[in-house]
Protein backbone atom coordinates (compact mmCIF):
# COMPACT_ATOMS: atom_id res chain seq x y z
CA UNK A 1 0.00 0.00 0.00
CA UNK A 2 1.33 3.43 -0.84
CA UNK A 3 0.69 6.46 1.38
CA UNK A 4 -2.33 7.65 -0.58
CA UNK A 5 -4.16 4.29 -0.56
CA UNK A 6 -3.34 3.91 3.13
CA UNK A 7 -4.88 7.29 3.88
CA UNK A 8 -7.98 6.38 1.84
CA UNK A 9 -8.28 3.06 3.70
CA UNK A 10 -7.94 4.81 7.06
CA UNK A 11 -10.58 7.30 6.05
CA UNK A 12 -12.93 4.47 5.00
CA UNK A 13 -12.37 2.72 8.34
CA UNK A 14 -13.19 5.95 10.21
CA UNK A 15 -16.43 6.30 8.31
CA UNK A 16 -17.23 2.64 8.95
CA UNK A 17 -16.51 3.09 12.68
CA UNK A 18 -18.87 6.04 12.91
CA UNK A 19 -21.63 4.02 11.23
CA UNK A 20 -20.81 1.00 13.43
CA UNK A 21 -21.18 3.11 16.54
CA UNK A 22 -24.77 3.92 15.56
CA UNK A 23 -25.49 0.31 14.54
CA UNK A 24 -24.09 -0.95 17.85
CA UNK A 25 -26.41 1.27 19.90
CA UNK A 26 -29.43 -0.38 18.33
CA UNK A 27 -28.07 -3.93 17.96
CA UNK A 28 -29.92 -5.37 20.94
CA UNK A 29 -33.22 -3.73 20.00
CA UNK A 30 -32.88 -4.89 16.36
CA UNK A 31 -32.21 -8.42 17.60
CA UNK A 32 -34.99 -8.48 20.20
CA UNK A 33 -37.63 -7.03 17.90
CA UNK A 34 -36.39 -8.81 14.76
CA UNK A 35 -36.59 -5.55 12.87
CA UNK A 36 -34.57 -3.97 10.06
CA UNK A 37 -31.44 -2.18 11.37
CA UNK A 38 -32.71 1.16 10.08
CA UNK A 39 -30.42 3.37 12.15
CA UNK A 40 -27.23 1.51 11.19
CA UNK A 41 -28.17 1.38 7.52
CA UNK A 42 -29.05 5.09 7.48
CA UNK A 43 -25.68 5.82 9.06
CA UNK A 44 -23.96 3.79 6.31
CA UNK A 45 -25.83 5.82 3.70
CA UNK A 46 -24.90 9.11 5.39
CA UNK A 47 -21.27 8.05 5.27
CA UNK A 48 -21.80 7.19 1.57
CA UNK A 49 -20.52 3.68 2.22
CA UNK A 50 -23.12 1.95 0.01
CA UNK A 51 -21.34 3.03 -3.19
CA UNK A 52 -17.64 2.65 -2.32
CA UNK A 53 -17.22 -0.31 -4.69
CA UNK A 54 -18.53 1.59 -7.73
CA UNK A 55 -15.70 2.82 -10.00
CA UNK A 56 -14.70 6.48 -9.66
CA UNK A 57 -15.84 7.41 -13.16
CA UNK A 58 -19.42 6.47 -12.22
CA UNK A 59 -19.33 8.44 -8.99
CA UNK A 60 -18.06 5.82 -6.55
CA UNK A 61 -14.70 5.29 -4.90
CA UNK A 62 -13.45 2.08 -6.56
CA UNK A 63 -12.78 0.47 -3.18
CA UNK A 64 -10.96 -2.87 -3.20
CA UNK A 65 -12.45 -6.07 -1.78
CA UNK A 66 -10.02 -5.79 1.14
CA UNK A 67 -11.35 -2.35 2.01
CA UNK A 68 -14.94 -3.52 1.79
CA UNK A 69 -14.10 -6.55 3.94
CA UNK A 70 -12.63 -4.20 6.55
CA UNK A 71 -15.92 -2.28 6.65
CA UNK A 72 -17.80 -5.59 7.10
CA UNK A 73 -15.46 -6.63 9.93
CA UNK A 74 -15.94 -3.29 11.70
CA UNK A 75 -19.73 -3.54 11.37
CA UNK A 76 -19.68 -7.20 12.48
CA UNK A 77 -18.24 -6.11 15.82
CA UNK A 78 -21.19 -3.78 16.39
CA UNK A 79 -24.31 -5.36 14.86
CA UNK A 80 -24.18 -8.55 12.81
CA UNK A 81 -27.52 -7.88 11.09
CA UNK A 82 -26.31 -4.49 9.84
CA UNK A 83 -23.02 -6.07 8.77
CA UNK A 84 -24.78 -8.90 6.91
CA UNK A 85 -27.17 -6.49 5.18
CA UNK A 86 -24.21 -4.38 4.09
CA UNK A 87 -22.19 -7.43 2.96
CA UNK A 88 -25.07 -8.85 0.91
CA UNK A 89 -25.57 -5.46 -0.75
CA UNK A 90 -21.86 -5.31 -1.66
CA UNK A 91 -21.99 -8.86 -3.10
CA UNK A 92 -24.73 -7.68 -5.49
CA UNK A 93 -22.77 -4.54 -6.34
CA UNK A 94 -19.75 -6.74 -7.20
CA UNK A 95 -21.86 -8.71 -9.70
CA UNK A 96 -23.19 -5.55 -11.34
CA UNK A 97 -19.86 -3.70 -11.45
CA UNK A 98 -17.98 -6.71 -12.79
CA UNK A 99 -20.51 -8.32 -15.11
CA UNK A 100 -22.68 -5.68 -16.78
CA UNK A 101 -20.20 -5.20 -19.67
CA UNK A 102 -21.05 -2.09 -21.71
CA UNK A 103 -24.67 -2.04 -20.61
CA UNK A 104 -25.63 1.65 -20.46
CA UNK A 105 -28.63 0.83 -18.29
CA UNK A 106 -26.47 -0.77 -15.59
CA UNK A 107 -23.94 2.08 -15.73
CA UNK A 108 -26.80 4.53 -15.15
CA UNK A 109 -28.04 2.41 -12.29
CA UNK A 110 -24.59 2.47 -10.67
CA UNK A 111 -24.56 6.28 -10.95
CA UNK A 112 -27.93 6.33 -9.25
CA UNK A 113 -26.58 4.00 -6.58
CA UNK A 114 -23.94 6.62 -5.79
CA UNK A 115 -26.37 9.54 -5.83
CA UNK A 116 -29.11 7.92 -3.80
CA UNK A 117 -27.17 5.27 -1.81
CA UNK A 118 -29.68 2.59 -2.84
CA UNK A 119 -29.84 -0.83 -1.15
CA UNK A 120 -29.83 -4.00 -3.31
CA UNK A 121 -31.24 -7.35 -2.13
CA UNK A 122 -30.60 -10.81 -3.54
CA UNK A 123 -32.94 -13.63 -4.48
CA UNK A 124 -31.09 -16.80 -5.41
CA UNK A 125 -32.73 -19.29 -3.04
CA UNK A 126 -35.88 -20.87 -4.41
CA UNK A 127 -38.45 -23.37 -3.18
CA UNK A 128 -37.33 -26.84 -4.26
CA UNK A 129 -33.63 -26.11 -4.69
CA UNK A 130 -32.54 -24.84 -1.26
CA UNK A 131 -29.07 -23.35 -1.20
CA UNK A 132 -27.99 -24.73 -4.58
CA UNK A 133 -27.77 -21.32 -6.22
CA UNK A 134 -26.46 -22.77 -9.50
CA UNK A 135 -29.90 -24.18 -10.27
CA UNK A 136 -33.18 -22.41 -10.91
CA UNK A 137 -36.69 -23.72 -11.33
CA UNK A 138 -38.27 -20.43 -12.44
CA UNK A 139 -37.58 -19.04 -15.92
CA UNK A 140 -37.59 -15.48 -17.13
CA UNK A 141 -40.15 -14.90 -19.87
CA UNK A 142 -38.85 -12.76 -22.70
CA UNK A 143 -41.59 -10.96 -24.61
CA UNK A 144 -40.05 -8.57 -27.14
CA UNK A 145 -38.22 -5.94 -25.11
CA UNK A 146 -39.98 -6.85 -21.88
CA UNK A 147 -39.18 -9.59 -19.40
CA UNK A 148 -41.43 -11.12 -16.75
CA UNK A 149 -40.50 -13.32 -13.83
CA UNK A 150 -42.31 -15.11 -11.05
CA UNK A 151 -40.17 -16.81 -8.40
CA UNK A 152 -41.05 -18.63 -5.19
CA UNK A 153 -38.17 -17.09 -3.26
CA UNK A 154 -37.78 -18.80 0.12
CA UNK A 155 -35.48 -16.15 1.62
CA UNK A 156 -34.99 -12.54 0.53
CA UNK A 157 -33.15 -10.61 3.23
CA UNK A 158 -34.49 -7.07 3.76
CA UNK A 159 -36.67 -7.68 0.66
CA UNK A 160 -39.25 -5.09 1.63
CA UNK A 161 -36.67 -2.45 2.54
CA UNK A 162 -34.57 -2.82 -0.62
CA UNK A 163 -34.60 -0.38 -3.55
CA UNK A 164 -33.77 -3.14 -6.04
CA UNK A 165 -33.51 -6.94 -6.16
CA UNK A 166 -30.96 -8.94 -8.15
CA UNK A 167 -32.67 -12.22 -8.90
CA UNK A 168 -31.61 -15.44 -10.65
CA UNK A 169 -33.71 -17.55 -12.99
CA UNK A 170 -33.32 -19.87 -15.96
CA UNK A 171 -32.34 -17.88 -19.07
CA UNK A 172 -35.55 -18.74 -20.99
CA UNK A 173 -38.44 -21.15 -20.69
CA UNK A 174 -36.63 -24.06 -22.40
CA UNK A 175 -33.29 -23.59 -20.62
CA UNK A 176 -31.91 -26.34 -18.37
CA UNK A 177 -31.80 -25.56 -14.60
CA UNK A 178 -28.13 -24.49 -14.71
CA UNK A 179 -28.46 -22.09 -17.68
CA UNK A 180 -29.23 -19.03 -15.60
CA UNK A 181 -29.30 -15.26 -15.84
CA UNK A 182 -29.39 -12.58 -13.18
CA UNK A 183 -31.77 -9.64 -13.57
CA UNK A 184 -31.89 -6.41 -11.62
CA UNK A 185 -35.46 -5.33 -10.89
CA UNK A 186 -36.15 -1.90 -9.40
CA UNK A 187 -38.67 -1.15 -6.70
CA UNK A 188 -41.95 -0.44 -8.45
CA UNK A 189 -41.22 -3.07 -11.10
CA UNK A 190 -42.12 -5.96 -8.79
CA UNK A 191 -44.47 -7.09 -6.07
CA UNK A 192 -43.63 -9.30 -3.10
CA UNK A 193 -46.33 -11.59 -1.78
CA UNK A 194 -45.28 -12.53 1.74
CA UNK A 195 -45.16 -16.31 2.25
CA UNK A 196 -42.70 -17.11 5.06
CA UNK A 197 -41.84 -15.38 8.33
CA UNK A 198 -38.27 -14.84 9.52
CA UNK A 199 -38.53 -15.58 13.24
CA UNK A 200 -35.11 -17.09 13.80
CA UNK A 201 -32.46 -17.88 16.37
CA UNK A 202 -30.12 -15.16 15.12
CA UNK A 203 -29.45 -12.66 12.32
CA UNK A 204 -32.95 -11.51 13.17
CA UNK A 205 -32.51 -8.00 11.83
CA UNK A 206 -31.80 -9.23 8.29
CA UNK A 207 -35.60 -9.70 7.99
CA UNK A 208 -35.08 -12.57 5.55
CA UNK A 209 -38.74 -13.38 4.93
CA UNK A 210 -39.95 -15.51 2.02
CA UNK A 211 -41.97 -14.11 -0.86
CA UNK A 212 -43.49 -14.87 -4.20
CA UNK A 213 -41.67 -12.38 -6.39
CA UNK A 214 -43.52 -11.13 -9.47
CA UNK A 215 -41.73 -8.64 -11.69
CA UNK A 216 -41.86 -7.03 -15.12
CA UNK A 217 -39.06 -4.88 -16.55
CA UNK A 218 -37.26 -3.87 -19.77
CA UNK A 219 -35.10 -6.70 -21.12
CA UNK A 220 -31.92 -4.60 -20.86
CA UNK A 221 -32.01 -5.08 -17.08
CA UNK A 222 -30.76 -8.67 -17.46
CA UNK A 223 -27.03 -8.79 -16.70
CA UNK A 224 -25.41 -9.55 -20.08
CA UNK A 225 -23.04 -12.27 -18.80
CA UNK A 226 -24.36 -15.75 -17.86
CA UNK A 227 -24.94 -16.26 -14.14
CA UNK A 228 -22.69 -19.36 -14.31
CA UNK A 229 -19.75 -17.01 -14.91
CA UNK A 230 -20.86 -14.48 -12.32
CA UNK A 231 -21.26 -17.20 -9.68
CA UNK A 232 -17.97 -18.93 -10.46
CA UNK A 233 -15.83 -15.81 -10.84
CA UNK A 234 -17.38 -13.36 -8.40
CA UNK A 235 -20.39 -14.20 -6.30
CA UNK A 236 -19.16 -17.31 -4.49
CA UNK A 237 -15.77 -15.85 -3.67
CA UNK A 238 -17.04 -12.40 -2.70
CA UNK A 239 -19.78 -13.93 -0.53
CA UNK A 240 -17.39 -16.17 1.33
CA UNK A 241 -14.85 -13.40 1.85
CA UNK A 242 -17.28 -10.70 3.00
CA UNK A 243 -19.24 -13.13 5.17
CA UNK A 244 -15.95 -14.39 6.61
CA UNK A 245 -14.95 -10.80 7.37
CA UNK A 246 -18.11 -10.01 9.30
CA UNK A 247 -18.09 -13.39 11.07
CA UNK A 248 -14.57 -12.52 12.14
CA UNK A 249 -16.03 -9.26 13.47
CA UNK A 250 -18.63 -11.09 15.59
CA UNK A 251 -15.96 -13.35 17.09
CA UNK A 252 -13.55 -10.44 17.62
CA UNK A 253 -16.15 -8.56 19.65
CA UNK A 254 -16.83 -11.70 21.72
CA UNK A 255 -13.10 -11.98 22.46
CA UNK A 256 -13.07 -8.26 23.41
CA UNK A 257 -15.87 -8.87 25.89
CA UNK A 258 -14.11 -11.92 27.35
CA UNK A 259 -10.89 -9.95 27.63
CA UNK A 260 -12.65 -7.15 29.55
CA UNK A 261 -14.11 -9.76 31.87
CA UNK A 262 -10.72 -11.34 32.56
CA UNK A 263 -9.07 -7.95 32.98
CA UNK A 264 -11.72 -6.81 35.48
CA UNK A 265 -11.16 -10.00 37.46
CA UNK A 266 -7.38 -9.47 37.39
CA UNK A 267 -7.79 -5.93 38.68
CA UNK A 268 -9.90 -7.11 41.58
CA UNK A 269 -7.20 -9.60 42.68
CA UNK A 270 -3.80 -8.26 41.67
CA UNK A 271 -1.07 -10.89 41.73
CA UNK A 272 -3.28 -13.86 40.82
CA UNK A 273 -4.20 -14.95 37.28
CA UNK A 274 -7.99 -15.17 36.78
CA UNK A 275 -9.29 -18.63 35.86
CA UNK A 276 -10.51 -17.49 32.43
CA UNK A 277 -7.11 -16.18 31.34
CA UNK A 278 -5.85 -19.42 29.83
CA UNK A 279 -9.03 -19.95 27.85
CA UNK A 280 -8.81 -16.37 26.65
CA UNK A 281 -5.34 -17.08 25.30
CA UNK A 282 -6.78 -20.07 23.45
CA UNK A 283 -9.64 -17.97 22.04
CA UNK A 284 -7.13 -15.36 20.89
CA UNK A 285 -5.16 -18.00 19.01
CA UNK A 286 -8.31 -19.29 17.31
CA UNK A 287 -9.34 -15.75 16.39
CA UNK A 288 -5.99 -15.22 14.73
CA UNK A 289 -6.61 -18.36 12.65
CA UNK A 290 -9.94 -16.95 11.46
CA UNK A 291 -8.31 -13.63 10.61
CA UNK A 292 -5.45 -15.35 8.78
CA UNK A 293 -7.92 -17.43 6.81
CA UNK A 294 -9.93 -14.41 5.66
CA UNK A 295 -6.88 -12.25 4.93
CA UNK A 296 -5.21 -15.01 2.88
CA UNK A 297 -8.44 -15.46 0.93
CA UNK A 298 -8.69 -11.73 0.25
CA UNK A 299 -5.10 -11.64 -0.94
CA UNK A 300 -5.75 -14.58 -3.28
CA UNK A 301 -8.84 -12.81 -4.62
CA UNK A 302 -6.95 -9.57 -5.28
CA UNK A 303 -4.28 -11.54 -7.18
CA UNK A 304 -6.81 -13.43 -9.29
CA UNK A 305 -9.47 -10.78 -9.87
CA UNK A 306 -8.26 -9.52 -13.23
CA UNK A 307 -7.83 -13.02 -14.66
CA UNK A 308 -11.06 -14.93 -15.43
CA UNK A 309 -9.08 -18.18 -15.74
CA UNK A 310 -7.64 -17.83 -12.26
CA UNK A 311 -11.02 -16.88 -10.84
CA UNK A 312 -12.72 -19.92 -12.35
CA UNK A 313 -9.86 -22.28 -11.46
CA UNK A 314 -10.59 -25.17 -9.15
CA UNK A 315 -7.74 -24.25 -6.84
CA UNK A 316 -9.39 -20.86 -6.28
CA UNK A 317 -12.84 -22.35 -5.67
CA UNK A 318 -11.41 -24.86 -3.19
CA UNK A 319 -9.60 -22.06 -1.34
CA UNK A 320 -12.73 -19.87 -1.12
CA UNK A 321 -14.86 -22.81 0.05
CA UNK A 322 -12.27 -23.49 2.73
CA UNK A 323 -12.44 -19.88 3.93
CA UNK A 324 -16.20 -20.25 4.36
CA UNK A 325 -16.24 -23.63 6.08
CA UNK A 326 -13.24 -22.87 8.31
CA UNK A 327 -14.36 -19.45 9.53
CA UNK A 328 -17.99 -20.45 10.08
CA UNK A 329 -16.98 -23.40 12.26
CA UNK A 330 -14.21 -21.72 14.22
CA UNK A 331 -16.18 -18.63 15.28
CA UNK A 332 -18.59 -20.91 17.15
CA UNK A 333 -15.73 -22.49 19.10
CA UNK A 334 -14.34 -19.03 19.88
CA UNK A 335 -17.63 -17.59 21.13
CA UNK A 336 -18.24 -20.70 23.18
CA UNK A 337 -14.83 -20.24 24.83
CA UNK A 338 -15.77 -16.63 25.59
CA UNK A 339 -19.05 -17.82 27.10
CA UNK A 340 -17.17 -20.16 29.43
CA UNK A 341 -14.91 -17.27 30.44
CA UNK A 342 -17.73 -14.80 31.12
CA UNK A 343 -20.01 -17.40 32.74
CA UNK A 344 -23.46 -16.23 33.76
CA UNK A 345 -22.51 -12.64 32.89
CA UNK A 346 -22.05 -13.81 29.31
CA UNK A 347 -25.18 -15.94 29.29
CA UNK A 348 -27.37 -13.13 30.56
CA UNK A 349 -28.67 -10.46 28.21
CA UNK A 350 -27.98 -6.81 28.92
CA UNK A 351 -24.59 -7.03 30.67
CA UNK A 352 -21.35 -5.59 29.22
CA UNK A 353 -20.23 -9.22 28.87
CA UNK A 354 -23.37 -10.62 27.17
CA UNK A 355 -22.69 -13.09 24.37
CA UNK A 356 -26.11 -14.54 23.57
CA UNK A 357 -26.62 -12.40 20.48
CA UNK A 358 -23.11 -13.16 19.21
CA UNK A 359 -23.61 -16.88 19.63
CA UNK A 360 -27.03 -16.89 18.00
CA UNK A 361 -25.93 -14.71 15.08
CA UNK A 362 -22.83 -16.85 14.57
CA UNK A 363 -24.93 -20.01 14.31
CA UNK A 364 -26.27 -18.84 10.94
CA UNK A 365 -22.80 -19.03 9.39
CA UNK A 366 -22.74 -22.80 8.91
CA UNK A 367 -26.22 -22.82 7.33
CA UNK A 368 -25.85 -19.84 5.06
CA UNK A 369 -25.19 -22.10 2.09
CA UNK A 370 -24.92 -25.27 4.15
CA UNK A 371 -21.38 -26.28 5.04
CA UNK A 372 -22.30 -29.86 4.13
CA UNK A 373 -23.26 -28.72 0.66
CA UNK A 374 -20.00 -26.77 0.30
CA UNK A 375 -17.91 -29.66 1.61
CA UNK A 376 -19.72 -31.85 -0.94
CA UNK A 377 -18.66 -29.51 -3.75
CA UNK A 378 -15.10 -29.34 -2.49
CA UNK A 379 -14.88 -33.13 -2.21
CA UNK A 380 -15.93 -33.44 -5.86
CA UNK A 381 -13.20 -30.99 -6.90
CA UNK A 382 -10.61 -32.82 -4.83
CA UNK A 383 -11.11 -35.85 -7.10
CA UNK A 384 -9.10 -33.99 -9.73
CA UNK A 385 -7.62 -30.87 -8.13
CA UNK A 386 -3.99 -31.17 -7.09
CA UNK A 387 -3.22 -29.16 -4.00
CA UNK A 388 -0.56 -26.49 -3.93
CA UNK A 389 1.70 -27.49 -1.05
CA UNK A 390 3.88 -24.39 -1.13
CA UNK A 391 3.66 -22.11 1.90
CA UNK A 392 3.90 -18.65 0.38
CA UNK A 393 2.83 -19.64 -3.16
Amino acid at each position, binding site marked *: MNIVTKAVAAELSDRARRAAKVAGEFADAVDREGRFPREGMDALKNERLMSIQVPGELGGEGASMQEIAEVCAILGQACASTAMTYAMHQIQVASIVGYSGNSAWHADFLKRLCDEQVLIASATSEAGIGGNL*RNSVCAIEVDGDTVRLEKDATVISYGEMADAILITSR*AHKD*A*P*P*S*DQVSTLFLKGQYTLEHTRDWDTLGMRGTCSDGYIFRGEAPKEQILPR*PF*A*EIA*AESMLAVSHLLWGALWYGIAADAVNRAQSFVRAAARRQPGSTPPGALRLAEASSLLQQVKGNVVAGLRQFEEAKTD*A*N*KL*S*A*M*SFAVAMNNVKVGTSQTILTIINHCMLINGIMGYKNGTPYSLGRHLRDAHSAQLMISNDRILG*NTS*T*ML*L*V*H*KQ*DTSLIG
Partner: protein
Amino acid sequence: MSTAETVRKIVATHGKLPVDVGTIADDGDLYSAGLSSFASVQLMLAIEEEFDIEFPETMLNRGTFASIASIAKAVDTISAEQQAA
Protein backbone atom coordinates in the same frame (compact mmCIF):
# COMPACT_ATOMS: atom_id res chain seq x y z
CA MET B 1 -11.83 -41.63 -34.35
CA SER B 2 -10.81 -37.99 -33.89
CA THR B 3 -10.24 -36.64 -30.40
CA ALA B 4 -13.41 -34.56 -30.68
CA GLU B 5 -15.46 -37.65 -31.62
CA THR B 6 -14.14 -39.61 -28.63
CA VAL B 7 -14.77 -36.62 -26.35
CA ARG B 8 -18.29 -36.39 -27.70
CA LYS B 9 -18.92 -40.05 -26.81
CA ILE B 10 -17.63 -39.47 -23.28
CA VAL B 11 -19.76 -36.34 -22.90
CA ALA B 12 -22.77 -38.43 -23.93
CA THR B 13 -22.09 -41.03 -21.22
CA HIS B 14 -20.73 -38.86 -18.38
CA GLY B 15 -22.01 -35.33 -19.04
CA LYS B 16 -25.49 -36.05 -17.62
CA LEU B 17 -26.89 -33.41 -19.97
CA PRO B 18 -30.64 -32.88 -20.14
CA VAL B 19 -30.38 -32.67 -23.96
CA ASP B 20 -29.18 -35.08 -26.68
CA VAL B 21 -25.45 -34.50 -27.24
CA GLY B 22 -26.08 -34.90 -30.98
CA THR B 23 -27.81 -31.51 -30.94
CA ILE B 24 -24.73 -29.72 -29.55
CA ALA B 25 -22.13 -28.38 -31.99
CA ASP B 26 -18.44 -29.01 -31.27
CA ASP B 27 -18.09 -25.39 -30.16
CA GLY B 28 -21.52 -25.28 -28.44
CA ASP B 29 -21.51 -24.10 -24.81
CA LEU B 30 -21.78 -27.18 -22.57
CA TYR B 31 -22.66 -25.14 -19.48
CA SER B 32 -25.69 -23.56 -21.07
CA ALA B 33 -26.60 -27.05 -22.32
CA GLY B 34 -26.83 -28.00 -18.63
CA LEU B 35 -23.38 -29.32 -17.68
CA SER B 36 -23.16 -29.14 -13.88
CA SER B 37 -19.91 -28.67 -12.00
CA PHE B 38 -20.27 -32.16 -10.53
CA ALA B 39 -20.74 -33.71 -13.98
CA SER B 40 -17.79 -31.72 -15.34
CA VAL B 41 -15.53 -33.39 -12.78
CA GLN B 42 -16.90 -36.84 -13.64
CA LEU B 43 -16.32 -36.01 -17.28
CA MET B 44 -12.77 -34.93 -16.55
CA LEU B 45 -12.05 -38.21 -14.73
CA ALA B 46 -13.49 -40.28 -17.60
CA ILE B 47 -11.37 -38.34 -20.12
CA GLU B 48 -8.22 -38.80 -18.07
CA GLU B 49 -8.92 -42.55 -18.01
CA GLU B 50 -9.74 -42.83 -21.73
CA PHE B 51 -6.74 -40.85 -23.00
CA ASP B 52 -4.39 -41.87 -20.20
CA ILE B 53 -3.54 -38.26 -19.41
CA GLU B 54 -3.69 -36.03 -16.36
CA PHE B 55 -5.07 -32.51 -16.51
CA PRO B 56 -2.55 -30.07 -15.07
CA GLU B 57 -3.86 -27.65 -12.44
CA THR B 58 -3.59 -24.74 -14.90
CA MET B 59 -6.24 -26.36 -17.12
CA LEU B 60 -8.73 -27.01 -14.33
CA ASN B 61 -10.96 -24.03 -15.06
CA ARG B 62 -14.31 -23.35 -16.67
CA GLY B 63 -12.78 -22.49 -20.05
CA THR B 64 -11.33 -25.98 -20.57
CA PHE B 65 -14.71 -27.66 -20.21
CA ALA B 66 -16.78 -25.05 -22.01
CA SER B 67 -17.24 -27.08 -25.22
CA ILE B 68 -16.39 -30.39 -26.88
CA ALA B 69 -13.86 -28.52 -29.04
CA SER B 70 -12.13 -26.91 -26.03
CA ILE B 71 -11.88 -30.28 -24.25
CA ALA B 72 -10.47 -31.92 -27.39
CA LYS B 73 -7.95 -29.11 -27.75
CA ALA B 74 -6.85 -29.53 -24.15
CA VAL B 75 -6.53 -33.32 -24.60
CA ASP B 76 -4.38 -32.88 -27.74
CA THR B 77 -2.18 -30.32 -25.99
CA ILE B 78 -1.63 -32.54 -22.96
CA SER B 79 -1.03 -35.68 -25.06
CA ALA B 80 1.56 -33.83 -27.17
CA GLU B 81 3.31 -32.57 -24.04
CA GLN B 82 3.30 -35.99 -22.41
CA GLN B 83 4.76 -37.61 -25.56
CA ALA B 84 7.44 -34.95 -25.79
CA ALA B 85 8.40 -35.43 -22.16
